[in-house]
């Protein structure tokens, strides 16, 4: 069997974001990077399936981006993926979800992947489009937001998370794509021996120009901070003083402290 997992590298979301020179995305300097959180669940699920199926199964991890994304790829390899495709694209951030999906679909088209795993959304752009669009472009079955996954000889049984804690149970046949939601599993931490082993795994480097066949369908006109609503009080400074200030406010503005 052939499995593919698509991962995106995103900045640490606790960073301060400043618009880039064009004012359409964030300035990438001085950011710490890591694997998109939702994609960690996708990798873990793919690795678990890879382990269950054993010999004869191959798990490829794919990421589109500049050279820095190799760090995220290496993490996925250390978690248990067999090999990787780094679609080299320093301008990945300026591509719309349709283009990102089309790059993945073009890569996957003649490779006969049985199951493709993606995250349900990326934390920085958060369009929740790429996974489903890849499936549409490949013409394969797809379900989204899964919090449960079982596989048995060509059949997938997935649990979708709906609003308010309700779940929907779905069955489909491979080839298929699933988009993974938080809580699907407990992503493992790569162990040192596995990090060492991962160094020997193959990372194919493919220039994006070889795979990009589509024009963008949408344009980002601007990237900016939210218009502050104001009203709220911001307290900063020494913790001891802050405690007294907060207690005074709570006594004044609420009935919960006397």
């Amino acid at each position: 069997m052939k499995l593919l997992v698509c991962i995106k590298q995103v900045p640490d979301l606790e960073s301060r974001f400043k618009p880039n020179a064009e004012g359409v995305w964030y300035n990438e300097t001085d950011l710490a990077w890591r694997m998109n959180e939702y994609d960690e669940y996708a990798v873990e699920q793919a690795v678990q399936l890879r382990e269950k199926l054993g010999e004869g199964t191959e798990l490829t991890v794919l990421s589109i981006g500049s050279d820095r994304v190799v760090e995220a790829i290496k993490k996925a390899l250390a978690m248990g993926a067999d090999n990787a495709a780094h679609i080299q694209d320093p301008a990945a951030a300026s591509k719309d979800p349709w283009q990102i999906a089309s790059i993945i679909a073009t890569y996957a088209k003649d490779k006969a992947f049985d199951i493709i795993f993606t995250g349900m959304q990326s934390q920085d752009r958060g369009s929740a489009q790429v996974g489903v669009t890849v499936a549409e472009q490949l013409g394969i079955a797809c379900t989204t937001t899964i919090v449960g996954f079982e596989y048995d000889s060509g059949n997938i049984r997935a649990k979708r998370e709906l609003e308010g804690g309700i779940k929907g149970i779905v069955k489909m046949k491979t080839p298929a794509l699933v988009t993974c939601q938080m809580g699907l599993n407990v992503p493992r931490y790569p162990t040192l021996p596995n990090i060492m082993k991962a160094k020997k795994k193959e990372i194919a480097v493919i220039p994006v120009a070889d795979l990009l066949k589509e024009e963008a369908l949408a344009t980002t006109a601007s990237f900016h901070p939210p218009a502050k609503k104001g009203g709220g009080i911001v307290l900063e400074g020494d913790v001891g003083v802050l405690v007294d200030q907060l207690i005074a406010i709570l006594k004044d503005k609420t009935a919960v402290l006397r």
Partner: protein
Amino acid sequence: MKTLLIGEYREGKLLDSTYELFGFASQMGSETAMLMVGSESQLPAYGGTLYLADAATCGEYNPDLHKKLILDAVQKENPDYIVFVHSSYGWDLAPRVAASLKVAQVSELIGVVPGGFEVGCCNAKMRRTVKPNGARAVLTIQAGAFPVEQPGGTPQLQKLAASESGTLEFVGYEPAEKKDVDLGKAEIIVSAGRGIGKKDNVPVIAALAKALGGELGASRPVVDAGWVEHSHQVGTTGQTVSPKLYVACGISGAIQHLAGMKKSDFIVAINKDKDAPIGEIADVLVVADVMQFVPALTAKVAR
């Protein structure tokens, strides 16, 4: 301008969020038509054209089939925009429709601005203005971002039928886990977020809840990691609460968390990041390390 609004229906009921689609259409100043896979016994209060397929035969979750029905209605109505709520139904179906039409999708709109649509990004800390390149686009609107609007009237039904079975088989719903804590009744909730750092720190947050005479709440990652039980989770996939006081400890303020607690009377957030989006709705944002501030606060409150 015309929008085709895709209504939503679950376990036999029309979802209230469907009325937010009309709020969006009004802001756009657009003509509307609607499509729903639902039931004639639960029609929206809407006097326009409603393309209706029967959920009993078409299924409530059958994206291949629902996509086909929508594409049929798009042919008939020739809308500029096809609009969904950004929900588990909408974010699943919208990209399929957009891909079939090969038009842009703009996800999770929070506003309409000159030159495009406003969406959140970077975990809600930042915003983007996005513009579809073509004349037609698929849109999903963030739940709660647009006003609920009931146009009133009785729809002019255009019944749709479809047979094709699709690539997915929907087996059924699994009910939400039973809650052993009803946070909905709590007057004070102190919630732990990922910013508390580790499971061992949960008792520190629980101690503040106790000192204030309230309950412990939690954000989703804290629950997913097994630090706190699911019955304490606040948010779209947890509980919706409206206490007199809500204290968010190390919680960034993602939309799915805010949706569960923004109706609280008074919100205090403790976060080391002054730009955390929780600051947009907090009455007081304390910029501090949660593990230094909370024990100090608990000590003073308990005294």
